[in-house]
């Protein structure tokens, strides 16, 4: 039975019109149609990743409910591939199904105030205590922490080792009383992210992912997937910001000047180049393990978003001087198109910082793709506790 037949069988057994949303999603998971490239029993069929599109199209045509993927993006895009690759069988069985259905929302506890680009310098400590660990520290830039049930967490388990080698990777229960989530307001006015304070948080050793001391390696899988998740979706022509700007251009002849026209044409061109580049990347990705090309897409996307959002404000002229709303809210997803130009302009500034800054991504490309030599480093072999701060 091919995936299309399986999808039709699912629909025949669970008519979306008459089935509870969550029941339908669980049935879809159990039928292996959640992410077909995952193994059987874990929501997949071990099928090529490309066949997912067949399933999705058939389900969309039948108006079946989806799992609101933008809201649970961190779980789907980052936690799941990491658990799949490094998790124990028990961890996979426990976490993946409710993660995929959205019953359990995931967030990410990686960055710290003193460890951003240099994530491996992180100072949050996890100390062995019987059959578990006790965690203390401060994390930052955590989206959806206030709604999350679980977090993927990296913490230092051995400060005597060099910084990349003393880190372990955990699943942290966000309902633990030692977890405090505080909104972190951004320049847009929103608090899309949070600061998370961890005070004596207990994590059972069964919630460790990968071996003790191998957390840095495990985190690479998370981070590579983050970059792909950000830059890797298929988009139609004029999908995204360029469509918004082009529509304004078409609707508002009085705003047009040759200077803006030349920049618009360049932006349209660049958007199309990035779109075709992404498409070629997807055609190349036969395995599920993304490489540094994801970094390249994210880099290109950030630059384009900043270029276009800056252009949009200038195009609007007097309207660009306004702002829709500075009220502090705590949104669960970023809504680039549902707000005004000024918001897009400000929010796009984060595109080149969050999830690996553009500077770090250029290093990654230069070293991993082009094979250029690393810069002289003095911090790689020193015990973490002896690093200058």
């Amino acid at each position: 039975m091919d995936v299309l037949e399986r999808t039709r069988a699912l629909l025949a057994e669970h008519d979306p019109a008459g089935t509870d949303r969550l029941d339908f999603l669980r049935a879809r998971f159990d039928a292996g149609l959640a992410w077909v490239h995952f193994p059987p029993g874990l929501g997949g069929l071990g099928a090529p990743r490309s066949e997912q599109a067949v399933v999705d199209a058939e389900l969309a045509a039948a108006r079946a409910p989806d799992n609101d993927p933008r809201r649970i993006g961190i779980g789907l895009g980052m936690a799941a591939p990491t658990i799949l690759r490094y998790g124990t069988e028990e961890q996979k069985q426990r976490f993946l199904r409710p993660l995929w259905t959205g019953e359990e929302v995931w967030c990410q506890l990686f960055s710290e105030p003193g460890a951003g680009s240099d994530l491996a310098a992180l100072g949050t400590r996890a100390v062995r205590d019987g059959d578990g660990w006790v965690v203390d520290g401060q994390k930052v830039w955590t989206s959806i922490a206030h709604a999350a049930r679980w977090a993927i967490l990296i913490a230092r388990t051995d400060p005597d080792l060099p910084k990349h080698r003393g880190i372990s990777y955990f699943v942290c229960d966000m309902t633990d009383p030692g977890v405090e989530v505080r909104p972190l307001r951004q320049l847009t006015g929103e608090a899309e992210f949070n600061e998370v304070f961890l005070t004596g948080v207990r994590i059972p050793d069964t919630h460790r992912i990968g071996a003790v001391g191998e957390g840095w390696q495990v985190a690479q899988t998370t981070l590579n997937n983050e970059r792909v998740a950000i830059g890797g979706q298929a988009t139609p022509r004029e999908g995204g910001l360029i469509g918004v700007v082009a529509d304004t251009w078409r609707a508002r002849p009085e705003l047009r000047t040759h200077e803006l026209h030349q920049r618009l044409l360049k932006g349209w061109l660049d958007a199309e180049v990035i779109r075709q580049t992404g498409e070629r990347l997807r055609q190349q990705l036969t395995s599920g393990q993304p490489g540094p090309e994801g970094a390249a897409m994210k880099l290109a996307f950030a630059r384009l978003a900043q270029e276009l959002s800056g252009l949009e404000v200038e195009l609007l002229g007097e309207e660009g001087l306004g702002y829709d709303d500075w009220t502090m809210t705590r949104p669960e997803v970023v809504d680039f198109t549902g707000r005004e130009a000024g918001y897009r302009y400000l929010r796009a500034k984060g595109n080149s910082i969050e999830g690996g800054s553009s500077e770090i991504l250029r290093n990654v490309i230069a070293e991993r793709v082009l094979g250029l030599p690393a810069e002289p480093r003095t911090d790689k072999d020193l015990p973490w506790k002896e690093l200058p701060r």
Partner: protein
Amino acid sequence: MSDLLYSEIEEELRSSVRDLLTDHCPPTAILARCEGPEPYDLPLWRSLAVGLGVAGLQVPETLGGAGASVREVAVVLEELGRSVAPVPYFGSSVLGLTALLACEDRELLPAVAAGELTATLAVPFSTAPGGPLPAVSVGPGGTLTGRITSVADALPADVLLVPAGGGLYAVEAATVTARTSLDLTRQLADVTLDATPARQLASHDGPVRQALLTGAGLLASEQLGLAEWCLTTTVGYLKERRQFGRQVGSFQALKHRLADLWLETVGGRAVARYAADALATGSPDTAIAVAVAQAHCGALAVRAAEECVQLHGGIGMTWEHPAHLYLKRAKADQLALGTPGHHRNTLAALADLPVPLP
């Protein structure tokens, strides 16, 4: 060529303005104020305008001013840009006084020059020097009717200078409504006139055009000061911040970007000074000087503020860090009084670089 340096007197003026702003206008105070009911800091404005006496620097002493020139005004603007201080200096002392100085009617001038009265020019802040003016009609008895959107510094103004019927009018009793603005430190407002009493100051558009041209030229100095704050603050942060066991400022890619930004800033200082000097001396090269200064500095300030946010990393994205105040001011200033693209395009005619035929 004109004098592109700063005189000793100008440097002294800069020091006293900077001292006042350092003491009374820290970023925390601006942040605390900008979402409240009083987005302008009127006590600070009073200290600056009346206390330091900079409200009417370019106004002759006989008319109640300091008898200096717009070169000195430009120095004040550099410092106000450096501190993004929420005071109506630009509206009152730049746009307002320039217009009033170009009117034969002198009644309002001494009080505005002394900082006792705050004025502004009632046009959308995005209006370019040669751009269209809002439609305000003059009714019987010289009353005015119309709506003018996005006016800078109208909220704290005592008197609005309103272009209408080809001339200029003074209005004291308009309805002024705040607008949610991209720039948190210079909030815009809409002005509604409904058969509102007004007094004619000029019967031609000379004063308005002069105010817009002078405003565009001097705004470059504000943008320069803003860019310098961004550069200095970023350099300072990168010397402090350590990642990968090194000061982040020792990474060559960042050093090269900051070197390029410094170079643009050095250029900004030259062209802002040249424009201020041209405006002060009535040079025949003024139109080119203003276009060059605004085209360069409008882009410079945005780039400096964007680099400041980016190179501060996550912390630069937070509401608590002042970088965003500068980014918002820079982006709004880029639209104000003509975009850099607009000013570059004016060079087509001014420098005889003809537009292609269609």
